[in-house]
Structures are given as structure tokens and as C-alpha cells.
């Protein structure tokens, strides 16, 4: 019995099954459902309708009145093409989730299960730095073209909508046997000593580099560049040897080592397997994590940043005595160009930071707009005389905060944040549209909130409400709800109540719908006091049927607190007078 059951569930069954491209177009739609929702369209296998619905922004993980997701229907009916489209657009299929598990056991045939497995095993999404640089790389027209033509690999959803506004003009184009790859000098220099040297010397003034070496393969170089930007290598096994050669030239030693090791494996696998059976193009995928930390993108950019900062510091010294040393600047300028490749300066107060446009633009839409608008507005004209680099002047920001922010933009990591700085960092993150930074700051801040006073917690709650930092907000609300009476005794809390919009009192909001997993960040924040009441009810309230009464009690308590606060306020004013 046991062994019998095992053969049912064990995945070895799936090994023999290959998903060929034909599998995805063989399923003839049984019918068209031109007005159907995502569920009926998935059930009918109407690819066009599903595509349309996804384009209109329907939530692929939504459940219908039978608590089923669209992917479930597609798997049940065996529509591989629809299932794949849903998966590519972020449908959840992990076996550990309710929806995913249902998809797995209801799959019509083994091919569907294989597809689900394939997507389950998909590499985790890229980190913000890698993903934004990757978008920049892929949005260059030539690169996009290659991707569309040659990659069957499912693309991340960011590709479909982000192509336009993640575009930042490349500053160098490589032609390999006439086919272009567009790139940015700084990224290549950061990742490869070979490119760094060449950009400093023979390619310094060239916007186009033609490579015509016989053995140089376009796909391999493309993959390498893609790796430089994203820390993720995707390459056809057949191109791997070419890539090893390129790595050798480019002095990417660690990558070369990994690849060579993998090649040995491949050879052995080829020897074992009969090649004829599996003629699908095998691809090798390498995550940045498999390289030592020093060879990853953040480290490389960190190094670039360090040199730039060093130069910036030098600059600052010069800046103070600007009028006297014009000729001196020019000579320094020349040397600097060769070492840090900076192409823009950010100036805060008296301090100047040498930076790289492509990184700023990739990370922050604000900088992208600003850099592309330089000719339209009054920008870069208040730079130092003789300075060839454009200068972006920023106000209302401390140099420390800017430094931290730049560090984050280059390396995706944030070290030793002073809680005092956190508020300013939140402000900077919002202002420069660096939303991941908020989370990073919050993560650093959170452990330190454990021992702050109730008054301070109120302050942080106000801040998190202002900047929309859900994590902190949640934490504060929980804490307040659990120790409500302590807070009620705190003056700052009562004062805060006055600044908040009154609770909506709408009890219909309370019946929390099961929020679909993966529905994305819900940016609409609810009313703070409503949320607080919910939390409080959860922590303190009576049985379910008495809940409304408890809620009414809480509302009364709040009203009371507010009248106290008002009185205190007028007292203060009187005191002040």
C-alpha cells in the first residue's frame, strides 16, 4: 500500500515529461468568453481574454465566490497556455499555500504539474538594486530587441509595463558582429577590470565600440552584461564555453571559476545522458549569491562609491577656496575623470558628492526626471566655475542623510543608522521616490523602538502615518492597543488624538475580507483610529457577539480622552499667554 501511494506522489514521474513549445499552443480554446471574468476565461482557456484582463490590471490571485483562484481553473481544465500566463503574471502556485496546493492536486495531467513545479522553482525576485539596474539595461532599445527575439524564458511582470519609464540613455554601444548591445560605462567598469582599463584609455572618447573577434559570441556577451547589471546569469549551455573565454578576457575570475566548474558538470551529464532524447535548449542560471560577496554587484558599486566619495572629499577642500585655485581644479578634474567616471555632482550645502547618473536614474525616478530635464530648467548652472560636471543642488537635506541615501542607492544596504536620522531618512526616501529605502530604514529602526517611551512611540506613529511606513505603524498600533490604558494616561497620546482625523465609525469596514495573498502593497491606509480600534478589540474585547458593545465602549473612551486633550490644550495656551 505504502509503496503504491508513494508512486503516486513522488515527483520522479514528472522527470520524464518535457514541456515543449507545442504544448502551449496545442490547446485549442473550447470557447470564447468575450465578457467573462478571469475565472470563466481561465476555465474556458480563452487566452486572449485572460491576456486582456491581466492587462486591465485584474488581480490574478483573486478568489471567486467558491474561494477558487483563476489558476486553479486553468490547471483543472488543463489549459497550459493560460496557466503559464497566469503564473508569469504572479499567480501563486507554491505547494505550501492553500491556493497553490489546490492547483497542484487538481492539475489535469502531469504536464500541468510540471509547469507548476517549474514556476515554483523559479528564482526568488531580485533585490531592489539589481532589479532596477536590470530594468535599465533591458529598457535600452537594442537590448530589449534581443530579449524579445531570443528569450523564451518567462519575463518578470516588471518588463511589460516598465519598459518606458525605466529607460535611461546608454553611454556606450558595443557592436558584436554588427549586433548592438547598449550599456553604461560605470556598470561595466565596476564589474570588470578589463572594461575599466579600456574605458580609461582607448575607449575613452568613443560612444561606439565595434568588436569583431571571430570567437566572440553575441549571446554570451549579452548574458555577461546582463549579469553585470542584475547579478543573475542566464545563459544557454551551448554558449557557456564562449562565456568562459570572455570572462578570462574581462578578468571576472570568480565567475569564470564557477562557470568552468559547471562546464565540467555539464560534460559529465552529457556523457551520462543520451543527447538525442532531450534536445531542448538547456539554460544555466546563476544567482549572485553563489559568488563571494566581493564579486557581487553591491560590493562592486560600493567600491565605485568609495572612490567617488574620496574624490568628493578632496573636492570639498578645493571648493572652499574656489576662486583661488581654478587652474588646480582643472588638473584634478582630469585625474578624477580617469578614476571614478563620475558624471554628475550632487551638492548639499557646501558639500559636493560625485555620482553616476545611471545609478541615480535607475534607483530614483526623481533623479531620472531631473537629469533628463536639465536643459529645460535652471539646473547645473550654479556649479563651480570650470567644473565640467553638472551639479544638482539639493536643499532641506543634511549631508549625512544624503550620504546614507547615496550609499543605499549604490549598495542596497544601510549601515548604522542613528534613530535620530531615521526621520530625515524617511523624508528623503519619500521625496526621492526611493520606496524600498523606507523599508530598510524601518528594519533598522524597529529593534530600537522596543525601549522607547509611550510619548515617543506616539511620535513614531505620527511619522509612520505621514510617510506611510506600514511596518512601524503596525508595530506602534499593536503596542498601543495592548497597553491602551498606559497610553491613555500619556499626555502626548491625547494630544495626538486631536491631530488625527476622527474615526469613521463605519463598522462595515471591520469585517475584514480575506485579503488575497500577493495582492501587492495596499497603499490605501485606513483611518488610523479605526485601525487602532480593531487592534484594541482584538486584544481586549469580549466575545464575538458582544463586539459591537465593546466597540461602542472604546469610542466613548476615545471621546473622553479627546475632551481631556482639548482642555489641556487650552490650558497650555493660557499658560503660554
Amino acid at each position, binding site marked *: 500500500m505504502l509503496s503504491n501511494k508513494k508512486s503516486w506522489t513522488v515527483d520522479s514521474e514528472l522527470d520524464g515529461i518535457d514541456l515543449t513549445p507545442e504544448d502551449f499552443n496545442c490547446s485549442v480554446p473550447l470557447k470564447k468568453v468575450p465578457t467573462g471574468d478571469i475565472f470563466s476565461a481561465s476555465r474556458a482557456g480563452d487566452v486572449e481574454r485572460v491576456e486582456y484582463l491581466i492587462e486591465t490590471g485584474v488581480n490574478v490571485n483573486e478568489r471567486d465566490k467558491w474561494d477558487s483562484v483563476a489558476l486553479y481553473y486553468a490547471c483543472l481544465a488543463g489549459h497550459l497556455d493560460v496557466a503559464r500566463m497566469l503564473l508569469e503574471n504572479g499567480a501563486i502556485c507554491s505547494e505550501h499555500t492553500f491556493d497553490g496546493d489546490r492547483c497542484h492536486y487538481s492539475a489535469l495531467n502531469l504536464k500541468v504539474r510540471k509547469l507548476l513545479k517549474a514556476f515554483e522553482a523559479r528564482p526568488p525576485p531580485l533585490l531592489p538594486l539589481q532589479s532596477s539596474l536590470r530594468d535599465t539595461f533591458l529598457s535600452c532599445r537594442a537590448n530589449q530587441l534581443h530579449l524579445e527575439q531570443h528569450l523564451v524564458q518567462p519575463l518578470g511582470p516588471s518588463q511589460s509595463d516598465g519598459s518606458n519609464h525605466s529607460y535611461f540613455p546608454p553611454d556606450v554601444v558595443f557592436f558584436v558582429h554588427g549586433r548592438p548591445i547598449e550599456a553604461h560605462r560605470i556598470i561595466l567598469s565596476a564589474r570588470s577590470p578589463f572594461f575599466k582599463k579600456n574605458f580609461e584609455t582607448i575607449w575613452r572618447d568613443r560612444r561606439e565600440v565595434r568588436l569583431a573577434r571571430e570567437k566572440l559570441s553575441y549571446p554570451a556577451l549579452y548574458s555577461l552584461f546582463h549579469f553585470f547589471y542584475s547579478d543573475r546569469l542566464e545563459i544557454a549551455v551551448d554558449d557557456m564555453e564562449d562565456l568562459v573565454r570572455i570572462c578570462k578576457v574581462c578578468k571576472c575570475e570568480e565567475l569564470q571559476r564557477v562557470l568552468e566548474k559547471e562546464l565540467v558538470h555539464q560534460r559529465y551529464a552529457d556523457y551520462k545522458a543520451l543527447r538525442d532524447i532531450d534536445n531542448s535548449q538547456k539554460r544555466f542560471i546563476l544567482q549572485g549569491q553563489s559568488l563571494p560577496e566581493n564579486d557581487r554587484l553591491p560590493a562592486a558599486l560600493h567600491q565605485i562609491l568609495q572612490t567617488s566619495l574620496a574624490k568628493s572629499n578632496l573636492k570639498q577642500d578645493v571648493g572652499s577656496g574656489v576662486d583661488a585655485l581654478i587652474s588646480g581644479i582643472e588638473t584634478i578634474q582630469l585625474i578624477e575623470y580617469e578614476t571614478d567616471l563620475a558624471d554628475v555632482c550632487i551638492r548639499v550645502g557646501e558639500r559636493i558628492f560625485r555620482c553616476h547618473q545611471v545609478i541615480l536614474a535607475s534607483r530614483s*525616478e526623481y533623479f531620472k526626471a*531631473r537629469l533628463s*530635464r536639465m536643459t529645460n*530648467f*535652471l539646473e547645473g548652472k550654479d556649479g563651480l566655475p570650470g567644473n565640467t560636471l553638472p551639479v544638482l543642488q539639493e536643499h532641506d537635506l543634511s549631508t549625512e542623510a544624503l550620504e546614507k541615501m547615496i550609499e543605499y542607492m549604490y549598495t542596497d544596504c544601510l549601515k548604522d543608522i542613528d534613530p535620530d536620522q531615521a526621520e530625515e531618512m524617511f523624508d528623503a526616501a*519619500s521625496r526621492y521616490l526611493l520606496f524600498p529605502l523606507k523599508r530598510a530604514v524601518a528594519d533598522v529602526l524597529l529593534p530600537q523602538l522596543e525601549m522607547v517611551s509611550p510619548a*515617543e512611540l506616539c*511620535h513614531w506613529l505620527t511619522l509612520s502615518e505621514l510617510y506611510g511606513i506600514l511596518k512601524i505603524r503596525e508595530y506602534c498600533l499593536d503596542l498601543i492597543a495592548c497597553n491602551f490604558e498606559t497610553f491613555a494616561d500619556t499626555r502626548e497620546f491625547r494630544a495626538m488624538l486631536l491631530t488625527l482625523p476622527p474615526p469613521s465609525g463605519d463598522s462595515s469596514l471591520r469585517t475584514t475580507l480575506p485579503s488575497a495573498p500577493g495582492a501587492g502593497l495596499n497603499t490605501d491606509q485606513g483611518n488610523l483610529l479605526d485601525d487602532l480600534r480593531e487592534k484594541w478589540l482584538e486584544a481586549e474585547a469580549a466575545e464575538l457577539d458582544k463586539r459591537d458593545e465593546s466597540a461602542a465602549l472604546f469610542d466613548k473612551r476615545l471621546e473622553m480622552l479627546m475632551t481631556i486633550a482639548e482642555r489641556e490644550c487650552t490650558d497650555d495656551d493660557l499658560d503660554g499667554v
Partner: protein
Amino acid sequence: MSTPKKRNFQIEAFKHRVVVDPKYAEKTWKILEHAIREIYNHNASGLSFEELYRNAYNMVLHKFGDKLYTGLVTTMTMHLKEISKTIEAAQGGLFLEELNRKWEDHNKALQMIRDILMYMDRTFIPSTHKTPVHDLGLHLWRDNIIHSKKIQTRLLNTLLELVQRERTGEVINRGLMRNITKMLMDLGSSVYQEDFEKLFLEVSANFYSVESQQFIESCDCGDYLKKAERRLNEEVDRVSHYLDAKSLTKITNVVEKEMIANHMLRLVHMENSGLVKMLVDDKYEDLGRMYTLFRRVPDGLSTIRDVMTSHIRETGKQLVTDPERLKDPVDFVQRLLDEKDKHDKIISSAFNNDKTFQNGLNSAFEFFINLNPRSPEFISLFVDDKLRKGLKGVSEEDVEVVLDKVMMLFRYLQEKDVFEKYYKQHLAKRLLSGKTVSDDAERSLIVKLKTECGYQFTSKLEGMFTDMKTSHDTMQGFYASQGGETTADTPTLAVQVLTTGSWPTQSSSTCNLPAEIMGVCEKFRAYYLGTHTGRRLSWQTNMGSADLKATFGKAQKHELNVSTYQMCVLMLFNNADRLSYKEIEQATEIPSSDLKRCLQSLACVKGRNVLRKEPMSKDIGENDAFYFNDKFTSKFYKVKIGTVVAQKESEPEKLETRQRVEEDRKPQIEAAIVRIMKSRRVLDHNNIVAEVTKQLQSRFLPNPVVIKKRIESLIEREFLERDKVDRKTYRYLA
């Protein structure tokens, strides 16, 4: 305790700059409003992006997003209203250019404004479900400029007027047109459709309706089609240059409807230049144009097809019913073939080899060929003619071509069995008289017939060929057995042993052969029956031929090629110079009609008159007397004396053939009925008739009356019975 205090202080400081000043929002908005104005006035280079962005950011952060948004809407609306005034003020032709310039300005400004307000665009707008800045700009442009009363109609009229001018041959600024239509499309496809496309199509419809009316009054069909085609191409060109690609089908539909669909019948039936005229004159180019244009409209092709088919039917009918044509079967068939070739060529070169047209052509041919009951005979005669002499010295491929064409006509025949009958007769004659030009051609035709109609159809024809071959072998065997005994005196005999049934034998009317011949014949009979037991030989004297050596006066020697009957008659003159008709009849016992015909050919044909007749009349009388014509002369050594045989059948013969065909059909119909009933067991009358007709269609169209008779006959013979309740239903017995 000291740290929190410090922090609190910081918070105060941070908030101060915003909240302390109650007029903060107002002030900041003034700055931004000023900036927007400057951007519209092309003065942005004096503005600091960073400062503006920061101000907008702070406004949104401190919950003044609503104010910022409504402020933006009002300011932009105000500016657009001003712009609309300047556009309205633009004179005449400058109007579009001004509009285009302002549109470009607006777009540029809009992008800059969007970038300044980016924070609002990213956070405030999605969470409050408002229209994003860029879309807002487009909507406002639409509402304030494009839909402003003074501009809307003027823009539309200007655009339409430009199109109209281009249609009348003027050159217009297409780039400008493209920019403007692009603007309409950018504003949303509904704007383009509502504000331009709809009326554009209406105006175009009017234009083309008027123009087509003019053209059709003044041009003939060919010219009209040329003009229509040019107009159509112009519109396609227009769409590709400055309209939305989605308009392509719409505008071409309009042109098609107005220029073609509405005048289709009139064009096709136009006198002296319509479709019929084109067909007659083989105007491939015009026909091709008509085809491509008509294909675009519903029912267009069927209109052409119907007219073409009825035209072919009409001409074909004239051809097959013309009594003049019936005189010469070969010419008749040749004309049919020519007609077919002509239309095939038209279909292939002008009608794109359209299947439906080919079908129409075929059905038309089928229709008129079967109008003439003699078509099967004529086609067979045509083949006969070709195989006797027509194909001499023609290459094999050409032979195939001719045969294929014949087969094509054959396919149109409904009464294929009649053709078979005639073909058999003609083939027999060819084989027996050795007149076939090419054995290969004969066989190839039979193979074709076989693939067309099946094994059954040709088995007898093939039997005839086998007979010819075995006869040849038999004769060799015969002479070998005689051991070279034949001398110059004894006549040489060539016998073809024909299997009964395979050959179209007529009622065998024997005659008395001359004694010399009789001797040889008996020897052969003895030989043949000796080698093949259980057979019966009978002589078909009416189908044989003979070569005679004759010496005339002045020792002129000739070889006469005659039929067996003629040979019998002439042999009589070896012993007598004068013989009366009665004497001849007595001696030979040839049936009188045959004898008369044979004597006629011997005595009455000029240049072939080896006999002399008293009296010298054209017809043979019972009392005539015949003399050996000593004075016969001929330039040739060999003289062929043909029998006076009508190539075509005479009326009684025709009737006879017809009867035989009908007789042959009876068993076939019965077989079909039995086959059907065997599988169906029970079937009603109408269905039987339908099924039988279907089964036999490949050979002939059976007459329902005949089928009924056959059913009755089968009932008599107890193959079928009528249902006891429903008399119309039959039941299969046995």
C-alpha cells in the same frame, strides 16, 4: 532621558517650517502656479526643478494634495482657455499650424509639469483614484481645445476640406495632417472616431457617391474600373500617410460600397463594354481588375460569376443547337474545346484561378453539352478522327494534351454509357481496319477512361485490344502450321478472332465467300478449333476487308483495297464480264441493303468505278446490270474503294444505337436497385430513385420512369415486394 528630548525638539523643528505658517499651502501653491505659468510661457529655464519638486512634495506630504490637484486643474484649464483663444484667432490656413504648434508646446509643458508633480503622481493620485497628471493634461486639452465650440467644427471642417482638396488633385501638407490626426488619436481613440473619423467617412461616402455617378454616366466599364481602382489606392495611401491604421478598412469599405457595390449590376451589364463584352474580347486586364475590385464587396464575385456562367451557357447553347454545326462533328467538338480553352485562360489569368469560377464554368459546360443528345457520339467521333489521322506526326505530349481535353469534355457528359457505345464502335472499326495511328494514344485514352469511370467501363475496350493481340499470335501459329505452303495463288488470310460480347457486332449476316477464300477459311477453322476446343467460330463478313490485285485494259495493274463484300462481288467478275444485280445477289447472298451500298461504291463513285453500270444512274436498281470497267485508270497503284458509309450515323442507325443503349441500361439500373435494397432492406420509392440516380450518375442519368419500370419488373421477379400498408414503400426479399 536626554535623548528623547532632543528628538522631540528635532520633530518640532521639522514640522515647524510647514505647519507653523497657516498660509503655507497658499504660498507654496502660488510658487507652483507661477512655475506652471512660466513653463507654458517657455520661461522654465529660470526655474529650479529641485525647488519646485520639493514644494510639491511637501504639499502632498502635509495633506494638501487635494489643493495641489485642484489647483493644477484650474491653472491648466485657464491656460488652455487662453491657448484656445489664440488658436481661434489664427487666420485661415494658419489655423492647423497654430493648433499643431500649441499641441506640441502643451505636450512639452505637460511632461515638465508631470515631472515636477511626480510625487503626487506616484502617491496621492493612485490612493485617491484620480486621473494621473499626463492623462489629466490630455483630457483638459480635449475638453478645452478640441471640444471648444469654435474650434471643434472648424478643425473638422479644415481637415475634411484638406482631404477634399487632396482628392481633387491638390498637394497638401501631409506632415501637418499626420500630426493633427496623431493628436486626435493620442487623446483617445474615441476622440479620433467621434470628432473626425465618423464625419470623414460620411463626407467620403457623399463624395464618392457623386463621383461614381459622374463616372458611370461618362465612362465605359473598363475606364470606370480603372478610376475606381485608382481611388481605392489613393485612400489606402492616405491612411498609411496620415490616418489611423484602423481607419483603413472603414474608408475602403466606403469606397467599395459607393464605387462598386452600388453600381455593380450596371457595370456588369453595361452595353458594349460590360462583362460579356470583355469576355468575348478576352480583356484579361479589365477582367482582372473587375475581379479584384468586386472581390472586395459582398456578392461581387457571385455577380460576375452568374453573368459569366449565363453568358457561357447562352453561347454554348447556340453552338450545340446550331444545325450548321451538326454537320461536322469534328469541328463541333473542336469549337467546344476552343470555347473551354478561352474561358480557362480567362479564369487563370484574370480571375485568380478562383475555384468557384471554375465550378461555374464546368456547370455551364455540363448544362449545354447535354442539351444536344448527340454530344457523346460527336465526342467519340472527334476522338476517332484524331486517332485515325489527326495525331499523325504529333509529339506524345501534344497527344496527351488533346486527350486530356477530350476527357474534360467527357466529364461533362451525363450519358457516359452512350459515349461508351459509340466509342466501342469506332474503336472496333479502327482496330479492324488497322487505322489506328498510335497504339499508345489508344491505350492512354483507355487508361484515362478507366481512372475516370472505373474498371467496368473499360473492361470490354481492353478485351478488344487483347483480342487483336491474340489474333496476331494465332495467325502466326496458323501460318507456321501450314509450313510455308502458301503460294502466290492462294489468298493470304488474316483473321481476327473477336470475343463475343466485347465487340459491337451487328446481326451477323453471312455471305457466300468465293471458293478460293472458302478454302483458306476452312483450313484456318480447322487449325483454330484444333488448338482451342469447345469454341465456335462464325465469320463476320461485314467487318472484313481485302486487298485485290486486278489487271485492267492496257495491262494496267492496280491493287484494290476493298471490303469483304466488295471482294465477293469483284471476284465474281473473274469469270464473267457482265452480271445482273439479281445474279450477283444470288451468288453472294449479301443482304440487299449492304449489296446496294457496296455496288454503289464500286460503280458510281468517280475515279473509283472499277465496275460499269447499266443504266448509268446514281442509285442501284434491282434490274441493273454491271460490267467490268476495262477503262478504269488511276494515278496510284493502290486504290482504296471505300464503302459508302455515312461517317455520322443515319437516322435509323441512331435509333438503333439508342435502343441498344436503353437496353443496356436496364440491367444496370436493376443491379443498382438490388444493391441499394440489399443494404437498406426497406425504402420508399422516392428515395430509391434518388439513390439509383446518385449511383449511376457517373455513367448516365437514369430516367425515373425507367427506374419505376425496373422496380416493377423486379417485383414481378420477386426480388422486391410492396409494403402491405404503405404502397409507396418497397421491401427487399431473398
